[in-house]
């Protein structure tokens, strides 16, 4: 971006500075570490200059917001037109309790809903299954049937909100329930807006919530993408996720590369169905973490947009500009938050949220300060929401688009992030693609190694975690905060409710539709329509999943420590 002569002049001055001014400082005050690295292992320079962005071409590499390569943002007005959606992941106990929490959050100013389901629901078990004992309602809301979904959205019109559902294995079933609730409320299906996470590939090496083996799982994912492309134009059928990969221990560039590769795989699997790329690509969405290293994260978000745009254009020849948009949701990183001195987490979340905003996210969840201790209390989640609101309305950062563009550091980092991520993508291609890489344990090994390294850095104090390995206080001096408790009666209530449901519904109809589902699964048909039928007949989540378990088998993971 600078003229050749100017760059030469800068280079000469840099040399002079390095040889005369710098040594004086280093001799009296050596630097804190021999090298400074970010999580992706990039070496961070002392100072960045135009020399580091000498090859940067504004039009080619940055462009304008809303235009290829979208580095600066997918929309032309970004937050000046509309702020990011403040969407707090929530759920616990019974559908009634979570319904209450939703209403509380909407009242406090959140602008989108996001459902956290409990473990039994996530694994396709009803609340009365033996594996569900002790787990019902503990980590999210228990939803075993359409009845629960109806209660969950009682008093919440589905044409007035958008809802994100963090659900993977049983995504089809929960989406079917949401559609059924919309039908009941009289909302036309074309108006239903929201997202199902529905990203099974990352489950196999990161979040591990797998019910069926890899190929049938991807088939179900693709069923949903295909169904939504035809029938739910406002629904994001998938949220291709890096968050869980990061939380499992990956570093920033691994998070980026593995997520993009998952995306590539889903595009391929949908193309194999016979759809054209522009038919479905505009509704693919992404989900990343926002971790501690402020500038690394910002670079990651910008590189992500640019890379996805290039991949969609060059690898998949998408023509619709919307197919090239990477729309993302970001959640601040849970694993960086500490149990010790929990109020410190408010600061961590603030910085991570700020990075996400400066990185141009479309939607944001901020963690609560009690993250390492329990599910969010009302106080904690309110503070988390306020964090977003203060950034939005008081800090001024949302008043211009991509303010850090042009920073020598940020642009150099964005370039390096893109380059290193592409290397990973090439590597996985060379390995034979995603299934081969999963079978070989490639992702699992990378993640396990990064996770172990991070822990040893903390143990050796090479990495300081304030309040944990430094600046600690005695337990008796630590602040006490309210902790959310899950009522143990939740499990009993759910079990009773299920029993009542099974007594009151038309069991013959349920049997019929489950048989139909088995048949359709064997024939490899798109299962969405049949699953919608099944949920409307009040077949339970467990019953529906059991049919598919019988057809597809269950999955067991490859362990790499």
């Amino acid at each position, binding site marked *: 971006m600078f003229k050749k002569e100017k760059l030469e002049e800068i280079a000469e001055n840099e040399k002079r500075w390095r040889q005369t001014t710098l040594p004086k400082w280093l001799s009296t005050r050596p630097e804190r570490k021999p090298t400074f690295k970010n999580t992706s292992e990039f070496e961070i320079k002392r100072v960045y200059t135009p020399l580091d962005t000498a090859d940067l071409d504004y039009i080619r590499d940055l462009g304008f917001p809303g235009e290829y390569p979208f580095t600066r943002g997918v929309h032309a007005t970004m937050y000046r037109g509309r702020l990011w959606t403040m969407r707090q992941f929530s759920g616990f106990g019974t559908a009634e309790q979570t319904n209450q929490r939703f209403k509380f959050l909407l009242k406090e100013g959140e602008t989108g809903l996001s459902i956290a389901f409990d*473990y*039994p629901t*996530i*694994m396709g*078990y009803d609340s009365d299954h*033996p*594996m*569900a*004992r*002790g*787990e019902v309602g*503990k*980590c999210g809301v228990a939803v075993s049937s359409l009845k629960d979904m109806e209660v969950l959205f009682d008093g919440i019109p589905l044409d007035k909100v958008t809802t994100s559902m963090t659900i993977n294995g049983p995504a089809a079933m929960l989406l079917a329930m949401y559609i059924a609730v919309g039908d009941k409320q009289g909302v036309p299906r074309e108006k239903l807006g929201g997202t199902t996470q529905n990203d099974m590939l990352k489950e196999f090496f990161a*979040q*591990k*919530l797998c019910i069926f083996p890899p190929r049938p799982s991807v088939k179900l994912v693709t069923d949903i993408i295909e169904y939504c492309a035809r029938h739910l134009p406002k629904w994001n059928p998938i949220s291709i996720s890096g968050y869980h990969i990061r*939380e*499992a*221990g990956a570093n920033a560039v691994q998070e980026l590369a593995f997520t993009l590769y998952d995306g590539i795989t889903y595009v391929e699997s949908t193309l194999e169905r016979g759809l054209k790329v522009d038919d479905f690509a505009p509704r693919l969405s992404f989900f990343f973490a926002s971790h501690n290293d402020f500038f690394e994260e910002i670079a990651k978000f910008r590189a992500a947009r640019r890379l996805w745009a290039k991949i969609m254009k060059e690898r998949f020849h998408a023509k619709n500009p919307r197919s090239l948009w990477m729309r993302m949701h970001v959640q601040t990183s849970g*694993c960086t938050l*500490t*149990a*010790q001195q929990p109020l410190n987490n408010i600061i961590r979340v603030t910085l991570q949220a700020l990075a996400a905003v400066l990185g141009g996210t479309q939607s944001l969840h901020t963690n609560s300060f009690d993250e*390492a*201790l*329990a*599910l969010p209390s009302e106080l904690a989640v309110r503070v988390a929401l306020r964090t977003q609101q203060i950034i939005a309305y008081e800090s001024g950062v949302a008043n211009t688009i991509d303010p850090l563009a042009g920073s020598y550091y940020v642009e150099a980092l964005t370039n390096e992030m893109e380059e290193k991520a592409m290397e990973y993508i090439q590597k996985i291609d060379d390995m034979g693609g995603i299934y081969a890489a999963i079978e070989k344990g490639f992702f699992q090994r990378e993640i*396990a190694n990064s*996770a*172990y390294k991070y*822990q*040893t850095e*903390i*143990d050796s104090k090479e990495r300081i*975690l304030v309040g*944990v*390995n430094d600046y600690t206080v005695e337990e008796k001096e630590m602040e006490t905060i309210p*902790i959310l408790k*899950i009522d143990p009666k939740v499990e009993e209530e759910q079990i009773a409710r299920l029993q009542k449901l099974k007594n009151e519904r038309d069991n013959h109809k349920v049997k019929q539709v489950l048989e139909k589902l088995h048949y359709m699964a064997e024939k490899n048909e798109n299962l969405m329509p049949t699953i919608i039928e099944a949920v409307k007949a009040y077949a339970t989540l467990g019953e529906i999943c059991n049919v598919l378990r019988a057809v597809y088998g269950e999955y*067991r*993971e490859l*362990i790499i*420590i």
Partner: protein
Amino acid sequence: MSSERKIRVLIAKPGLDSHDRGAKIVARALRDAGMEVIYTGLRQTPEQIVETVLQEDVDVLGLSILSGAHMALFPRIMELMQKKGLTDVLVFAGGIIPDEDVPHIKKMGIKEVFGPGTPLETIIEFVRKNAPRRI
């Protein structure tokens, strides 16, 4: 066959909790500290865990759980350990376990609970020091 005694450890994930980052890191650290480590993988029932302790005749059992279901699962595990005569096995736990539950958990026979932020060396030392000497 052996010269020095090896400590055999089972790291287990009871219930539906799928957060295994910590369990795997602890397994690896104990292995690097010279112990023989078996990891059960995810989603183990109390019956599976205790039977594995029995068949593998481990000296130490580590339970990792972050889902809040520990007060339902730990009692069942410790009850089965008692029933099968495995009371000399050292049992410890880790994960997301509220402070107020710790005294109850210790009463069940679980010797220590390691919360988030525990250095690996602390866990290794604890196991070395407290693993039962048998044979």
